[in-house]
């Protein structure tokens, strides 16, 4: 199935992309996608969990199961205000 991955701010800079279509196995969870990123990017390799995770613009736990067409975002700690 397909999910759209969004990355912002420092995470986008680390991974080098702001948006990516991913083909993931049925039954994949958000954390599985994160683990894929960790394997490729040393600056986040030591983070077993992403700072924040959103699916379809709602904060969720990284163990959330993904569904086809989901919009998955990994979000650095926010610093607005």
């Amino acid at each position, binding site marked *: 199935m397909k999910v759209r991955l969004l990355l*912002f*701010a*420092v995470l986008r800079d680390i991974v080098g992309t702001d948006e990516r279509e991913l083909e993931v196995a049925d039954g994949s969870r958000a954390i599985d996608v994160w683990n894929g990123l960790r394997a490729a990017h040393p*600056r*986040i390799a030591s*983070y077993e969990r992403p700072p924040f995770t959103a699916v379809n613009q709602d904060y969720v736990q990284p163990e959330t199961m993904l569904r086809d067409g989901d919009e998955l975002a990994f*979000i650095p700690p*926010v610093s*607005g205000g």
Partner: protein
Amino acid sequence: MSYLTDSPIDQPALVARVMRSSDGALALFAGVVRNHHQGKSVESIFYECWRPMAEKEMAKIEADVAAAYPDVAIAFIHRLGLLQVGEASIVIACTSPHRDEAFAACREIIERVKQTVPIWKREKGPDGEEWVGWQGN
């Protein structure tokens, strides 16, 4: 009405949106770009935002605070893009017949914005630019 703007925040217009003739109190908060952060000199801050989710989170904050303080009228707006020292990044205006609720609502909004709204700042100083807070390793 959007909670986000790319232009300088019009504070009187924001206050005008909430002021009712039954209100005896206005509590207003402005977050402002300051010239220092954790001992480092700051010249400007770039605010990046994930707009659709930020609008959603800010609407949630407004709804929750309005439910907690039903007498309070609420307006708040966050500015995005490049801001210089002294410019307001966020302005929150809360009015109420009595001051307790106006203060409490105003305070709660800024705390919640800082916890959940997907906005990130990149500070620029004499030594270059850098994202504020978490940066990986």
